[in-house]
């Protein structure tokens, strides 16, 4: 190499180990920083579940003592919904990065593009976990919902798996629709019925029997049932392997399909 193009002062080649591992961590931090800086998106993602919780709190007060406690049922659903919405952010991110050519630029770096997409997804998982924690704290301290503290660490694990699953689902939706607007609508259009049929906002045993046959196989049901048991009893529900394995399988399926179908340009 010509001596005239020697390294500028202040830059240095990093060790190869750093070159292969650290960049993805740096990218996660950068996406986290960008996510926190995007206050409108952050506030929307946080205030939507808080607003839902507040509405249910206000409208369910005065229920019969000893009767079905709608708020206690719906609170774990709202916590689950908070991390499900991480998929919506993923849809927007993938779509806007594709439209703005960010993927093209990232593809020019030595770091494999797939690693950077995973790093960005990790940032989104962390952000959605913090948002879910805020909703839980709000529910306990402001609304007065009883929560079993022993269940919170395991619930965090389930929420991590659930966030990963719905981020993978968001990636799949972004792979299927070329325009951001279409992809966002498609995500919401599918997530809302999945939530309504998935024991998230409505008790499935109060819905028609056909829903009861479908509901256990939905990822929304799997996550909501796990979170509900952990937050209300502090323990996993009976036969927890089925929903846990189901969420994992959905994550693998959505990830595999999106990796096959996604085009970064």
């Amino acid at each position, binding site marked *: *190499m*010509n*001596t*005239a*193009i*020697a*390294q*500028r*002062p*202040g*830059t*240095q*080649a*990093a060790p*190869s180990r*750093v*070159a*292969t591992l*650290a*960049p993805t961590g*740096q*990218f996660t931090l*950068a996406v986290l*920083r*960008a*996510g926190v*800086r*995007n206050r409108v998106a952050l506030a929307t993602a946080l205030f939507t579940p808080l607003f839902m919780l507040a509405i249910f709190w206000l409208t369910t007060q005065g229920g019969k003592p000893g009767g079905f406690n709608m708020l206690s049922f719906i609170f774990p659903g709202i916590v689950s919904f908070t991390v499900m919405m991480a998929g919506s952010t993923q849809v927007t991110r993938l779509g*806007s990065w594709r439209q*703005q*050519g*960010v993927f*093209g*630029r*990232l*593809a*020019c*770096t*030595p*770091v494999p593009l797939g690693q*950077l997409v995973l790093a960005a997804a990790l940032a989104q998982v962390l952000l959605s976990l913090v948002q879910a924690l805020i909703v839980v704290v709000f529910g306990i301290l402001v609304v007065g919902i009883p929560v079993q503290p022993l269940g919170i660490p395991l619930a965090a694990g389930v929420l991590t798996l659930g966030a990963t699953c719905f981020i993978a689902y968001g990636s799949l939706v972004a792979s299927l629709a070329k325009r951001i607007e279409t992809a966002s609508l498609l995500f919401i259009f599918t997530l809302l019925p999945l939530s309504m049929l998935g024991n998230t906002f409505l008790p499935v045993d109060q819905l028609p029997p056909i829903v009861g046959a479908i509901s256990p196989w939905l990822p929304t049901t799997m996550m909501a049932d796990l979170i509900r048991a952990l937050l209300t009893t502090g323990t996993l529900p009976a036969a927890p392997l089925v929903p846990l394995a189901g969420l994992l399988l959905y994550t693998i399926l959505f990830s595999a399909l999106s990796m096959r179908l996604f085009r970064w340009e």
Partner: protein
Amino acid sequence: MIYQHPISRPVIEVEHLVKSYPGVKAVDGISFHVAEGEIFGLLGPNGAGKSTTLSIVEGVRRPDSGTVRVLGLDLPARAPAVKRRIGVQLQSTSLLPDLTAVEQIELFARLYGRTINRATALALLARVSLDEKASALPATLSGGQQQRLALALALVNDPEIIFLDEPTAGLDPQARHSLWDLVRGLCAEGRTVVLTTHYMEEAEALCHRIGIVDGGKLLALDTPGALITTLQGRSSITTAAALPAETLAALPGVHDVQTEGGNVRLQTDDVPATIGALLEVARRQGVSLRDLHVQQPSLEDVFLQLTGRSIRA
């Protein structure tokens, strides 16, 4: 000048490159070499295959067939190693929307496995005259500023070769000339620059050699001067003069006469002889020659001759 083609070693070797997309052959058998320290341009209209060619040479896309070696490394097999040693500015500025200019510099440096301190990041921004915009988000930057930031990102890894895809598209003349100066500065440091453009004047002003691309094929490849020299018979003389067309056609060197209104345009392969004879005829017939202009052939004419159409068509 550092450019020493053809003595300098080739840093890019492209042979018989082919790349197709459904329904279109984007690159159709292109071959060229780029010498170290050279500013090499691919000139052609939108959709000619320039950007696809560049993206293959950058290791981003895989060719259907053909061979590419960059800095002695085969692509796509050695793409990661090549990417560490090259800098890329894309046609779209492709900036992460919620990171400031200095944060983008720091992040991209780390993606290239380099540590970069804040002072160096700011110095790099200063080099592209963006130091005062270090804390600005991309959305608050003008088009020219975004292009300069994209160029700074292409430099974070001290690249030996810099690829610029339509670097001045959409910029005003002042911003365009400013970017040309930056490119010349990079070349003066010994870096090789490969750029695509559809601006004739940009190719002529910046590039040591130009490859003219259209329809996925490389139609011509040489220095701007040599390309234009091939059209020496296409100089033209225009004037407003009331002279018969047959008299003008008989002037030495003239091989075509066009008249429009009171203006005549003579195509000639011998400008001095034609001018001398024209002045003599006008003097003898008592006709004054107004608005006399001589126009040398340009790259636009070269492109027109090669493709049969204007680059803007």
